[in-house]
């Protein structure tokens, strides 16, 4: 049989006074690798053992400052950079409103982080296979006794001498604690070990799949979303023509709608129509708004016909060609109102005045793209 390795020599004391004295004496005797185990923190023990003050506070401070900084920077980034929204007419960086969350994040990160740091870094826990566990010594200090044990790695460790030393101090139940022998027959490809690994893999993969691909997309109740109603652009089973969207009843006239008298009569429109609006800045701005909404998707913001429909459509023509520049106002108005080739009629979407305003704006665009020297002169 193999010889067991000594972990430490331990002794128990009955009162807090005894253990405090024992700690002081152990220090005096020159031992450094020893520990005192007590069922509750005994006052003044750190002093007797000459321990340095705990450095946990430093970690708390760093984590707290880190949490606060993160919270402020994150909220500022969201409010200023990523998704600026005006809320209640306040500035984007309205710091007073950030205070509560900054405080909560500081407390959360500092306290959770310190606890984790204490358990994992300071205590090196979980540590359930320590030699002291399940010894008589541990069972007593866990309840009502006060124990001291000098560990074998101490430079002046000598089992017999320490036992004598403890007996002199008045220690009871002096015993030697041995280390658990490390089991030798641990195999990498044990059947049970492989089985557990496979089980973990199946459970993890299965759960992740179900949660991420199925569970997240299940809506418990969708009554509000699913209603018996006709949606635009869908097929209807009610109407004979199959369209859900209905045109107005024949002869319906919208408010402020003026029927176009030259429908399909381009020649007379070109001759007879002229712009009834005054040529003013206000009218041009009105024209720009309507142009940007209705005309620019095809003709482009500057009327150059250079939109993304350019190559996949019968090409939307530029408005700066000689042909269009030489049209009368009535001709442009007629094309907007009546439609031409693939361009539909806009008389139901744009009011009469707005169509005339667009005509002015197109003139402005044309002139801006074909400016003469005299235009620059007059601006001087």
């Amino acid at each position, binding site marked *: 049989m193999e010889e067991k390795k000594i972990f430490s020599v331990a002794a128990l004391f009955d009162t*807090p*006074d005894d253990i405090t004295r024992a700690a002081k004496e152990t220090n005096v005797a020159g031992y450094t690798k020893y*520990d*005192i*185990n*007590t*069922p*509750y*923190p*005994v*006052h003044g*023990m*750190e002093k007797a*053992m000459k*321990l340095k003050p*705990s450095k*946990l*506070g430093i970690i*708390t401070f760093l984590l707290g400052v880190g949490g606060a900084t993160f919270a402020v920077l*994150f*909220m500022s980034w*969201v*409010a200023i950079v*990523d*998704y600026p*929204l005006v*809320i*209640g007419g306040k500035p984007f960086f309205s710091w007073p*409103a*950030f205070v*509560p*969350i900054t*405080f*909560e*994040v500081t*407390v*959360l990160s*500092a*306290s959770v982080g*310190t*606890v984790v740091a*204490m*358990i994992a870094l*300071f*205590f090196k*826990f*979980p*540590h*359930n*296979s*320590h030699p*002291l*566990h399940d010894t008589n010594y*541990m*069972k007593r200090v*866990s*309840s*009502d006794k006060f124990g001291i044990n000098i560990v074998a790695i101490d430079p002046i460790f000598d089992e017999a001498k320490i036992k004598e030393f403890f007996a002199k101090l008045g220690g009871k139940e002096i015993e030697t604690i041995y280390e658990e022998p490390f089991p030798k027959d641990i195999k990498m490809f044990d059947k049970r070990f492989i089985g557990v690994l496979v089980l973990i893999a199946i459970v993890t993969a299965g759960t992740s799949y179900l949660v991420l691909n199925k569970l997240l997309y299940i809506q*418990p*109740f969708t009554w509000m979303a699913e209603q018996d109603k006709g949606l635009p652009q869908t097929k209807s089973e009610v109407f004979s023509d199959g369209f859900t969207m209905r045109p107005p009843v024949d002869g319906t006239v919208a408010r402020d709608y003026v029927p176009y008298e030259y429908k399909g009569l381009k020649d007379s429109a070109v001759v007879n129509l002229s712009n009834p609006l005054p040529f003013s800045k206000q009218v041009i701005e009105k024209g720009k708004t309507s142009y940007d909404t209705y005309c620019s998707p095809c003709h482009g913001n500057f009327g150059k016909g250079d939109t993304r429909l350019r190559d996949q459509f019968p090409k939307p023509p530029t408005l700066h060609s000689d042909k269009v520049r030489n049209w009368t106002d009535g001709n442009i108005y007629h094309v907007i109102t009546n439609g031409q080739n693939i361009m539909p009629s806009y008389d139901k979407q744009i009011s009469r005045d707005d169509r005339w305003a667009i005509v002015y704006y197109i003139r402005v665009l044309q002139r801006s793209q074909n400016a003469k020297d005299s235009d620059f002169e007059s601006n001087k």
Partner: protein
Amino acid sequence: MTAIDYTQEIPVVEGRPTASQIDEVVSIPMNTKPGKVWKVLIAITSLMLLVGSVALGYTFYYGIGMWGNNNPVGWGFDIVNFVFWVGIGHAGTLISAILFLLRQRWRTGIARFAEAMTIFAVMCAGLFPALHTGRFWLDGYLFPYPNQNHLWVNFTSPLLWDVFAVSTYFTVSLIFWYVGLIPDFATLRDRTTSKIKKTIYTLFSLGWRHSTRHWQHYEKIYVILAGFATPLVLSVHTIVSFDFAVSVIPGWHTTIFPPYFVAGAVFSGFAMVQNVLIFVRQAFNLKHIITLNHLEKMNQVMIVVGMIVGYAYGMEFFIAWYSGNDFEMFTFINRALGPYAWAYWIMVTCNVVSPQFFWFKKLRRSIPVMFVIGIIVNIGMWFERFVIIVTSLARDYLPSSWGMYTPTIYDFGILIFSFGLFFTLLLLFVKTLPVVSLSEVKAVVDGAQPSHKGGH
């Protein structure tokens, strides 16, 4: 009456029990089969859970239209109960953190229990805002996370502050509680003879060895956590009060709300802790650890915070008049004399009048009296939240948009559910974990610390 010797501190634990006696008495409930009383009690609380689950199921299936909430009273029982339960939780943190910082040694006997109540109360509280969102399976959106829609939560909204405050409060309370439990788990691990229990205790004790090199950090972290929990507990009810105070509803838009809410929270929390402790010390033979002195001190705290609450009621009226704001004045007159006057006067009677009995030492130390007053205070504090929320919403600025609030049976069902949840968890707690902190109580028994010959 015998003269009291003020030179001698009253012992925190009576009778000077030895450490092993403390272990023994505290671990009895965990090592014995539950008795008849416990079984009857858990049957009742489970029944409450069951009844409440029906109400919860209806709410889940048909939506919150089953509740009495309406337009204009958009916040009803849901928010009343939320504020009520968060308030109950505050006593636990106050006892475990604030009294710890104030070096009140008498807190050790009741701290573990009060912390457990905090955790369970916050769980009950969290239920209500979660349900109140309507489609609660989407509650994940309450937290800011990088999502596909590139949307973030509104960091300037008090409702979001609430999400952060309550979840932080729950997390910090839970780890505070757990850190306190680690040495006790180790003691239980070394005491138990059952193999299953030993495995569980070993797992949770993380390998604690009662080492002084560990106690040193452990005591430090206790101070740190107490130092954080103290402002945290004040911030939680402050932020809950911001839900109201930041709005522009008359009766809500006041700066007195944060301190007023915190005092109310401590008031109701102490009443609840005191009520439950009366049963616990009786049932588990802990009368020498949770002494009459403890209960008396809790009653003294209740007088103080009860008076603060009473002062706040008076000050609200004064400011309503002093501000010269017609709507504020109307709101408060309406509270006292309007259609919800009955609720207002229940509140005043329970919260301002009933604690006055505690001025008399005899009544303060009488178990039946303090039990009844504790219950009355909790009824009163529930009505306080009802009065604040419902009366302000029911009659605000425009008489044309006034409306009354009537809770439905489902509102009551979910209230019963929350009480069932709270007491079920509490009953399970007293049978599975040490209701008194072993290591802390051992440390405050007379003679537990070195005799200071010649002082420090």
